[in-house]
Each structure stands twice: as C-alpha cells, then as structure tokens.
C-alpha cells in the first residue's frame, strides 16, 4: 500500500512542481526583465561617471557624495526631500484624516450615503494629468474659478501656483481632491468588517459617536490604517504626476514644489530648457529613493503589524 502510494505520488509531485513552475515563469520573467534588471542597472549606473550619455568610468560613491553633500546638488536633494516629507505629513493629516471622518459618516448609512460614496470616489478614476491640468486652470490668477470666487468678496488675483508660500499647498490640495476617495473606501471597508454586535454593545453601554470612533472603530480598523499609511508613504515619496503638470519639471516657483521624483527625472533625463542629462547622478538619486522607501516601508510594516496584533 505504501509502495503504491510512493510510486504514484512521486511523479504527481514532480508534475505538480513543473506545472507551478510553468505558471510562475512568465510572471517571473516579466519581473526580472522589467523590474529587477532596470533596478540592477540603476544600481550599477549609480557608481559610474557619465561622459555625455555613456558611462565613462567607475567612480565608486562619488555620485552619492555629490547628491547628498556637494552644493548645489545637496541643497536641491534636501529641498526636494523636505517637500516629500511635508507631502506625507499633509496627506496623512488632511487626506487620511478627512477620509476617516467621511468613512465613519458613511458607515452610519445615513440617507443618501451611497451617492456620497460614489461622489467621493469619482475623482480617483480621473487621470492625474487631467486633475493637475484642471486645478491649474481653477487656480489661474486671472481667469481661474478660485480667484473669480475670491474676487466676489473683494480678494484680488492670488498667484496660487506662482507664490513660493502657496504653491506646494495648492498642489497638495489638488492631490487630496484627487485621492480622497481611495483611503475613504479602504477605511470604510475596514469599518464594515467590524462586527455589528460590537458596535451595538458599545452603543448599549452608552458610547456616543466620539467614543465609538476613538475607542472602538479606530483600534479595530488597524489593518486598514496600515495599508493606507504604507500606500500614502510610498505615494508621497514617489510623487510625480501632479507636481509635474502643475509646477513643471523644475518644481517652480524657485524649487518650492520640487520633489524627489521631479529632481530625479530632470537629473537623469535632463530637460530641453535646462540642460544636460546625467544618468550617474540620476541613478544615485533613484537608488537612494528606493533604499529609503523600501527601508522605511519595511520598518513601518513591522511596527504597524505589531500594533494590529496588540489592538
């Protein structure tokens, strides 16, 4: 009996492994070709000097030293990094905070909640390019909707995207308008998974909305908060489309909207109007961005998962 099992099981296991391998190979090949290979190339290029558009010699960590410690590159790197950090904090506070409140309101299934759910999610389906362009028009100093409305109450033309103090905030606002529906939906899904018995028990114990939100709902949606936090972090540090459309490749005005994505792009690929391409420094920036995002994501995931268990 055992002999027979062995005879039939071995070829079966072998065939199963082959079948799994066959299924995995195409995806693996795509990953190697389009993810791993470019990543390794970027790692390699980061250690080379580029004379024109071709690598001319191995220079060790020189490109990293330049982008991190040599002026004016280091100023540009830290300036862009600072804006990514601001973007992350602002999105966590305003986008995800608002999303939490909206999700909680939607959870209560008040009349019209379904249509509100659709409205909140609607901008998410638009392309970032369209959203950027739209808000650029809305914020136009002379013809934009925002200034036209402000004009009604006597406020003159405000150059939202032309003023160093308002440009980043304006772009973040457009970004929040675009993405608000996504964390709302994720958090709402998390809230809907909470057992109704728990919520009703809390109500019977006299918990009001605030207590329900902070003491019951917030701890129980920890897995959704983890997802939203991690995606916001990755999105903030890979931010590119909306700043590119609304502020251009140079992060104007005066670099006040520059972020690492823009800085990497114009360093590596140049721009017709600013000058030349430097794949070496560009790759060094890309490697630093990758290491930072991957490293912090891994640490944050560990912490947030532990928090989920504790909750």
């Amino acid at each position: 009996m055992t002999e027979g099992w062995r005879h039939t099981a071995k070829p079966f296991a072998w065939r199963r492994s082959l079948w799994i391998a066959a299924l995995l190979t195409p995806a693996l090949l795509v990953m190697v070709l389009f993810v791993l290979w470019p990543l390794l190339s970027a790692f390699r290029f980061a250690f080379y000097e580029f004379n024109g558009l071709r690598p001319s010699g191995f220079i060790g960590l020189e490109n990293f030293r330049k982008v991190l410690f040599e002026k004016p590159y280091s100023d540009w790197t830290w300036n862009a990094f600072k804006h990514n950090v601001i973007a992350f904090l602002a999105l966590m506070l305003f986008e995800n905070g608002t999303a939490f409140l909206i999700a909680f309101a939607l959870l209560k299934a008040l009349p019209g909640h379904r249509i509100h759910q659709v409205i909140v999610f609607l901008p998410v389906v638009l392309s970032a390019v369209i959203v950027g362009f739209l808000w650029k028009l809305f914020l136009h100093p002379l013809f934009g909707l925002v200034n036209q409305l402000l004009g009604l109450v006597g406020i003159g033309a405000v150059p939202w995207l032309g003023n160093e103090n308002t440009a980043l905030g304006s772009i973040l606002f457009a970004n929040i308008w675009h993405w608000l529906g996504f964390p709302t939906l994720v958090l709402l899904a998390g809230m809907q998974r909470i057992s109704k018995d728990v919520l009703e028990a809390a109500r019977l114990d006299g918990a009001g909305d605030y207590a329900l939100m902070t003491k019951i709902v917030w701890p129980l949606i920890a897995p959704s908060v983890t997802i939203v936090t991690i995606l916001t972090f990755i999105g903030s540090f890979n931010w590119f489309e909306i700043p590119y459309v609304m502020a251009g490749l140079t992060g104007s005005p005066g670099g006040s909207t520059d972020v690492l994505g823009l800085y990497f792009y114009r360093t590596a690929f140049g721009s017709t109007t600013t000058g030349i391409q430097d794949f070496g420094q560009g790759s060094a920036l890309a490697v630093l961005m990758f290491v930072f995002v991957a490293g912090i994501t891994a640490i944050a995931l560990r912490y947030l998962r532990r928090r989920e268990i504790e909750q």
Partner: protein
Amino acid sequence: MSRRRIGLALAAASFAWGCATSLAHAADISFWTWRQEDKAAYNALFADFTKANPDIHVKFESFPDENYPTIVSTALAGGKGGDVIHTHAYGWLEQFVKAGYFEPLDMATVPSLANQPADALVSGTYRADKKVYSLPFASQTLGLFINKDVFAKAGLTPPTTWDEFITVSKALKEKGIYPLANGMGTSWFNEMFVAIFTNPFLGQDFVSDLTSGKTTFKDPRYVAALGKLLELRPYMPDGFEGIDYETAGQLFLSGKAAMLAGGSFDIATYRSQNPAINMDFVAPPMAKAGDTPQATKFFDGGYAVNSKSANKEAALKLVNWMGTKEFGDKFSALLGNISPIKGVVIKDELLSHVAKLNETAMPHINVVYFRFEKPTGSELLQGDITKMMSGSITPDQLAADLTDGLAKWYKPFQGK
C-alpha cells in the same frame, strides 16, 4: 491545372520579390523632431527634396518637446532613432556627440556647410574636436512684441529707452491696460525674460569679460542689470508670479496687454492665432538714448545624422540639401523662422526686420556659454529668478548663486 496555378503563384511571388528588392534600393529615411506643429511645412520641403532625389523618401516623425531628449537618447543608446535628428544646440548637442551618436559633418559630405555663418556653426560644433555635428537650422531672436493698435488707441508711442518704457508703462496702466503681458509662471521663458531685459544694460564688453574669465556674474554690471528687472513688476499683470507664457501671449493677442517680451519663434504662432493682429517686434528698451539696440540672439539647433543610420548616405544627402539656399528660402517662408543660410531672402516684412535686429544682437549668454556641464547656468538661473522677482532673494544673491554653481565646472569662475 494545379501545376498551372502553382506556376502562376511562383510568377507572382517572383514579381513581388522583384518589386520589394527594387523598393528596398530606394532609401526610406526618417526625420525626428520635437516640432510637431511644423509637420505640414516639413512634408512640403521633403517633397521638394524627393523631387530632386526620387530614390529618397523622408518620413516626418515628431515627439513631445518636453520628453524629446529622453526619447532621442534612449533610442540612440539602443542603436535606433531617426536617420536625421533635429537637435538643439550647444550643450544639449554636445552630450550626444560625446556618446558618439552623431556623424561628423564636413565639406566632403555636406558641402552646404559653406553657406553657414561662423557664429551659427559654433552652435553645432563639438568644442573638443572642433568638428560640426549638426547643421544649424534657425536663429532665434528675443525682443519685445508691440501691439500697435493698443498703442495707437492709447495715443502712445512704443518705447525705445528704459526711461521711456517706464513712462509709457505708467500711462498704459492708468488707462487700464497691462503694459507688459509677461509673468513668471514658465521656467524656461523666465530665463529668456532675464536675457531680454538685462542684455541692453550689459553690452558686448560684459560678454567678452565673462567668457575670457575677467569677470563673473557677481560683476556689478550684472547685479545692476538684474536690479532693473525688479522695476518691471508694477507693470506686469496682477498675480504675475503665476502667469505662464501661454497666458501672457493671450493677454497680448487679445489687446489686454500692450507689450510682450518674447521670441521670434512665436511670430508665426501669434499670426495664426490672431490673423488680424497688428504687431511689431522690436529691440528691448536701451539703457539710454543713443545706445545700439540690442536684441538677444541664439541658434536653436540643427540637423544631425545618426551615426547608426542604415542609410547614412541618403541622410547626409538630405542634411546637405537642408543647408542650401533653396531650402532656406522656403523654410523661412513656410515657418516664419530666420534661416541662418547666407543669401536667404526673407520676404516677410516683420521677419526681415527681425533679421536686421540680429545684426547688432547680443548672444543669449546662458544658452550659448553655460549649458555644457552640470549644474547648467539655466538650472541655476531658472531656480533663482522667481525668488528674486518675488523678493525672497536679492540680485546679489542670485548673481552669487549663479557664479558659485557654475564654478563647479567653469574654471574661470573658480575661487572668485
């Protein structure tokens, strides 16, 4: 019967093969450019070329301007790309030449190089080997567009000196007209804006001192010229910090603004957008009466041959033709650009006036001399000028940032 069919099929296949072979001998070459809007004009020009060279057909392929460097460099790195590549000039070109992507042009392969003036050839020459790699296609002039109807209606005369400019601007503003349409919302144009208004205060001597290493951008002449830009702010539109170059063009074309600092490259566009516009293109205000009018000039780019082209001979033939007077005459007529080719006749009155301005024009300092290494003068200036115009840094700080940044690679500035 079936044998007969097979025979017929074989005969047809042989005929098709013959056709294909003869077609393959005729060269199909491609022309890559960022000038999507010039497709009709280039196709008309290429039709003329094919008429004279029936065995060569040219396909026009265009790509978005903003991504053009990326697309071209990736294609050329992979041994692909157009046979003839429309290039930008100076430092932009040099990075491609260093990588060996373009074929050097000489009098043997491109005799029409002889038709180019010396300053034009510099824009397509690699500084290290002094060889020409790109045949210059157009000079661009920066100056001041004047809406003549707006001035006539306001009963004012377009200014020629700085003092007149300020007086006229005040009068226009009182009449509810924006004197100057420009804002600071377009980085690449901000750099042109600086060149337009500072060059008349700098003069050729400053350029000579700068390029010979006698001075830097910290020079009081440059700082003072930058300071003049601050005087323009009251005469720019409300919220000028956020007004982009496209909006400025619309303010000018619609008559809401009387003047626009701009480039000759937009003459054709403005005419097509508002055929009724009655405009002039003049030199920016001179520092004082009696000075030489000084517009700003640079060469925009040229035509280069892909060193990996499978049809190099045909590509060189096309580039050579693009350097002839026949091409230059039609190019200027169709595209409203000033061809640098000697002897080209510019029939358009406004364009011929621009060509006249070129005779005394100053070079666009950053584009011509400081875009060869990183950080480029353009990166540094474009980053700082909006800050200066909004008052968060002074002209002195901008001049210092520009000099110190360029000193990374421009030896004459090191230690100064």
